[in-house]
């Protein structure tokens, strides 16, 4: 089909495509802080850490190679193993409970209730407080001589026992109580925002189908909120991996080493034991774990289809 008046050949023309490097140069320059941060800080520092994990650095980072010694020692250290176990436990519980509580609260708030703003504020405010504060106040509330246990006992239940911070077998739940208190509010807000984004018609369709509310949530709404859950997941996991301040503020790893976590192991080995190499090895292991978890996820999330 003829679509031109003159023969459709390329014309002689001097203008050549510009060098692609300089197209939208401003955008590239403006992204420089991000690029530098990504390369220098996140890649560079991580690389630095990994390199030094193969050294025998003590107080100061030094390139004194020791091969895999640090790793060997790491995996022979009881405290590291306990830390990992704790992190796994805390992580799983924290993840599940944060999601469940966060979602439940959001769902309840989304039921067109009265005083929504008040409830929401109450659930959210702990997020404004630091872990030092969270640790302090919960340490106190959970203190058997002052807090809940003593109050319940003073009401006559003298055999009541609730001292999670002093009982190695349940200390992780003590941490959990405080951690959830601090963090679920934010997840709730994310969930609430997600619920508000759901097409009203889906609810109506489910009502016409006669599906009970709880079932609608479980079978229809939650599966629809995948992106929201992913955002929440990123927020929660990044918090879990870094959980340090809370442990330090509440138990300092105790009783014994019952509430040690990897981040604290890293920190203590680096700064207290003055064995940087060991700390770096531990943090490299943490990073490795993150990457192992993240890469399949990132592949599923971004690799298969290009969105937006």
């Amino acid at each position, binding site marked *: 089909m003829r679509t031109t008046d003159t023969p459709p050949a390329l014309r002689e023309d001097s203008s050549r495509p510009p060098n692609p490097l300089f197209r939208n140069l401003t955008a590239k320059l403006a992204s420089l802080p991000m690029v530098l941060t990504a390369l220098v800080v996140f890649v560079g520092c991580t690389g630095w850490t990994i390199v030094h994990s193969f050294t025998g650095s003590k107080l100061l980072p030094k390139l004194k190679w020791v091969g895999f010694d640090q790793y060997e020692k790491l995996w022979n250290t009881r405290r590291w193993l306990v830390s990992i176990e704790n992190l796994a436990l805390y992580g799983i519980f924290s993840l599940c409970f944060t999601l469940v509580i966060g979602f439940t609260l959001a769902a309840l708030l989304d039921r067109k209730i009265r005083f929504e703003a008040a409830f929401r504020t109450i659930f959210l405010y702990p997020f404004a407080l630091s872990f030092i504060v969270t640790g302090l106040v919960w340490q106190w509330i959970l203190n058997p001589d002052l807090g809940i246990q003593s109050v319940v006992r003073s009401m006559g239940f003298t055999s009541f026992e609730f001292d999670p911070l002093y009982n190695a077998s349940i200390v992780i739940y003590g941490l959990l109580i405080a951690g959830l208190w601090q963090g679920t509010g934010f997840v709730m807000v994310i969930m609430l925002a997600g619920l508000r984004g759901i097409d009203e018609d889906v609810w109506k369709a489910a009502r016409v189908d006669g599906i009970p509310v709880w079932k609608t949530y479980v079978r229809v709404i939650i599966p629809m909120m995948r992106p929201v859950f992913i955002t929440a997941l990123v927020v929660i996991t990044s918090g879990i991996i870094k959980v340090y301040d809370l442990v330090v503020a509440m138990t300092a790893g105790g009783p014994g080493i019952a509430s040690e976590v990897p*981040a604290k192991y890293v920190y203590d080995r680096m700064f207290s034991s003055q064995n940087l190499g060991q700390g770096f090895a531990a943090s490299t292991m943490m990073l490795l774990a993150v990457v192992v978890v993240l890469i399949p996820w990132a592949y599923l999330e971004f690799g298969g289809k290009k969105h937006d």
Partner: protein
Amino acid sequence: MTDAARLLDGPRGPKPTRRLSRRNIILYGTLSVMALYYALPLYVMVVTSLKGMPEIRMGNIFAPPVEITFEPWVKAWSEACTGINCDGLSRGFWNSVQILVPSVILSIAVASVNGYALSKWRFPGSEVFFTILMIGVFIPYQVMIYPIVILLRELGLYGSLWGLVLVHTIFGMPLLTLLFRNYFTSVPDELFKAARVDGAGFWGIYFRIMLPMALPILVVAMILQVTGIWNDFLFGVIYTKPEIYPMTVQLNNIVNSVQGVKEYNVNMAATLLTGLVPLTIYFISGKLFVRGIAAGAVKG
């Protein structure tokens, strides 16, 4: 319009609902129980901070104060000791403000430009850098302490306020960039194209078009950053020096240094005083926060 436009027998009007239906009991019951769990610590903090030490030692922590005293607050603010300095939190307050303001501004500025560039000016590799940032969210920052010390030293920023601002900007970048990127992605491309046809460049579009539209997400970013930076202890103490130690250093000192018995009332007052700024922001802007999160976090 009808054959017989009048009411017949049987139910009419709104469906009667009992205020105390089972649904409502469960709904408000659960909410109230949860609210109790969330509110309890704040209550304990407030109540304790208003009691005197003898009363704390005697009574239980949930009992309201018999005799209200503001002594602990005064002490926490201006008398509590750290080492040999006994001027309480007041020392760090202005430092915290001085750290907070530039850190919040710079970190949001950088992250918003990142998000804008990532959503509207994608260039080859931009997603790679973004992915690296996102992995950065998961790196425990203790690991970064020494390398960053060395980095700051090389930049000549170590020990200065600007070094700390830089650190906050770096560590705030991943999450904030994600938020801004998602938000700006939801701004219609057409608007961006229209501005380009109108001859606006990268910065023209950013300042004149994008930023004025980014209010909801700016609020979220601001809240997150204010909270994070205000509550930060580790960076504040490692990358600065005593003249500019933030308030949390004093808080840590008050809370963690025990002079004889633990002065719980002073601790609680100090805690509340420190949390006042972020708390106020949350209480004021809760609604904007939810709206902003909806705009920035959920999509993408």
